[in-house]
């Protein structure tokens, strides 16, 4: 405790210099935590969106995930209802949503264009997934709706369609024939991604299966009680259906993985740069302090202080500067994160999207603890490194230092 007190008293010798060092360490730590919190918040949002889109688990035949289809639903699931019932018996499973994915043409009579369509269970899909779509006109599909569709905003504009318009869906059936089905537009939506809105069509499962002339579904999306249940549930479901493949949302989330890889590199480099700056600032402050105290260090050595004891107290001094800066920075980052909940800040739309999003900064205790601990250790190491030479200077030379 005496060494710590001595180190603390030493930090107070040149208060202005200590204050500047602490302030830079605080700002550096806050910058790292805010950048990390933003990345974490983005990961969480993208993970939730990915899991909400596909389901925490996606169950299908192995070829569904690895092979291209020769005909629609070639690798689809046959007994969707039976599988669904068995899946719902798992305690972590909340919903099982069948999905028919297909492509084809959509026409207003005068103009035809390519569509990417999903046949879904409307009640389950739109209630379980929550507000992932923004309706711009009409209504969301509901259970019992038949021969009705929801169009992406860009597709509706291209076909000059609005709620109530009649359109025709054209697609190959499972046996290779071309089939057509008249449908009515119930709603127009935006996913926030213009490229998707130009192609995407939602219809109910029955209409999709009727168009494709099948009772199969492409996959079953399994929604769990929480994200953390995913790995264990995957193992249980895989054991339950050994002939099927059970992927997690992460396997399906290419965009999430890309963003995470990119952000990890960007924010990792940023954190490294800030960490180096903080280390240099602490090291510089300590170097100045040590040079000024060379004679005193000589005195303490003459009195019988071992170099290791001096190194310890000087490292503690660096720890106090870096550590108090890191703690202040953590408080600052926490305060900014909380402030963003009270005073929301809207971010501009990311590339490829048409809507902005509220800026949120995640407060992750582990990230805070690791960052503060990291800053603390770096400051200690930097101080010890710059002090090493001086504490080993011959006592006579240190005492003669002016």
């Amino acid at each position, binding site marked *: 405790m005496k060494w710590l007190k001595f180190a603390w*008293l030493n930090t107070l010798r040149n208060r202005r210099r200590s204050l500047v060092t602490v302030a830079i360490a605080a700002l550096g730590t806050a910058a790292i935590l805010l950048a990390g919190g933003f990345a974490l918040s983005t990961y969480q949002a993208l993970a939730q969106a990915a899991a909400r889109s596909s389901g925490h688990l996606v169950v299908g035949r192995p070829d569904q995930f690895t092979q291209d289809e020769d005909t629609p639903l070639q690798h689809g699931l046959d007994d969707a209802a039976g599988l669904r019932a068995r899946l719902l018996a798992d305690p972590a499973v909340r919903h099982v949503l069948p999905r028919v994915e297909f492509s084809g043409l959509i026409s207003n009579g005068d103009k035809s264009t390519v569509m990417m369509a999903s046949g879904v269970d409307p009640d389950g899909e739109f209630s379980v997934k929550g507000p992932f779509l923004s309706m711009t006109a009409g209504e969301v599909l509901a259970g019992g709706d038949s021969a009705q569709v929801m169009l992406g905003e860009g597709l509706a504009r291209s076909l000059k369609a609005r709620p109530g318009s009649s359109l025709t869906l054209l697609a190959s059936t499972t046996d290779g024939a071309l089939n057509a089905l008249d449908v009515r537009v119930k709603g127009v939506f935006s996913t926030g991604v213009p490229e998707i809105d130009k192609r995407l069509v939602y219809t109910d499962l029955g209409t999709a299966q009727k168009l494709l002339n099948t009772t199969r579904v492409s996959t079953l999306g399994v929604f769990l009680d929480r994200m953390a249940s995913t790995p264990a549930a995957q193992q249980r479901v895989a054991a339950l259906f050994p002939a099927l493949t059970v992927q997690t949302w992460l396997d399906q989330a290419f965009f999430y993985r890309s963003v995470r890889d990119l952000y990890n590199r960007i924010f990792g480099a940023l954190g490294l740069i800030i960490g180096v700056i903080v280390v240099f600032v602490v090291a510089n402050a300590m170097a100045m302090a040590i040079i000024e105290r060379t004679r005193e260090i000589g005195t303490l050595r003459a009195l019988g202080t071992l170099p290791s004891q001096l190194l310890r107290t000087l490292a503690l001094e660096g720890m106090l500067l870096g550590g108090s800066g890191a703690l202040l920075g953590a408080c600052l980052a926490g305060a900014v994160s909380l402030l963003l909940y009270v005073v929301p800040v809207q971010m501009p739309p990311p590339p490829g999207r048409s809507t902005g999003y509220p800026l949120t900064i995640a407060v992750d205790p582990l990230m805070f603890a690791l960052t503060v601990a990291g800053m603390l250790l770096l400051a200690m190491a930097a101080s010890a490194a710059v002090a090493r030479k001086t504490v080993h200077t011959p006592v006579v030379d240190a005492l003669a230092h002016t």
Partner: protein
Amino acid sequence: MSGHAVELRGVHKTYRLGQHVIPALQGIDLSVARGELLALTGPSGSGKSTLLNLCGLIDSADAGEIAIDGQAVTGLDETQRTLLRRDALGFVFQGFNLVPVMTVAENVDYPLFLAGVPAAERRERVAAQLLAVGLHDHAAHRPDALSGGQRQRVAIARALVKRPKLVIADEPTASLDSHTADQVLQLMRERGHAEGAAFVIATHDERLTRRCDRVVALRDGRLL
């Protein structure tokens, strides 16, 4: 080599200054008895400080033998020399060399803390030492709140608190006015005898040499 606080036999020390080799000490034989006050005099460059540094184990001789309280120090590594300084030697510097961020009591306590003396005993010994040098009322003061004479008394208390065998004092009165210097000299003499510590004092001050038990003069690195 025993029975003395410090004993030197045939000690040589040279310094190298560029191409030149400067002999600082040449064949020094010297013994200082326990409790003795020895004044070391001589002009600047005579080797006083070098001899003090060797006696204080903060420098090493090129040749010869040195023993502190009967323990030969030749061949000791830096850690062993540091521990011997911690346990057996005290220092009084011309510039006081107190730690400015520590209080008077903390400065005096420091050597005991280094030596691992239990806290309760440290408190008692520090209080007794400050009482002995007349600074018990200033225990909580910082050195910069004290006069030069008071600071040197703190330094004497710091040197004697661990009951050393030998105290090395380099021009202890050079920064003090004559009245204060007298008081400090008197204090060193009294406290040295009371604690049984020998003093080796480098000085130009004749008043100081008159009060010492023995005076040794150095010239060109040799004892006269």
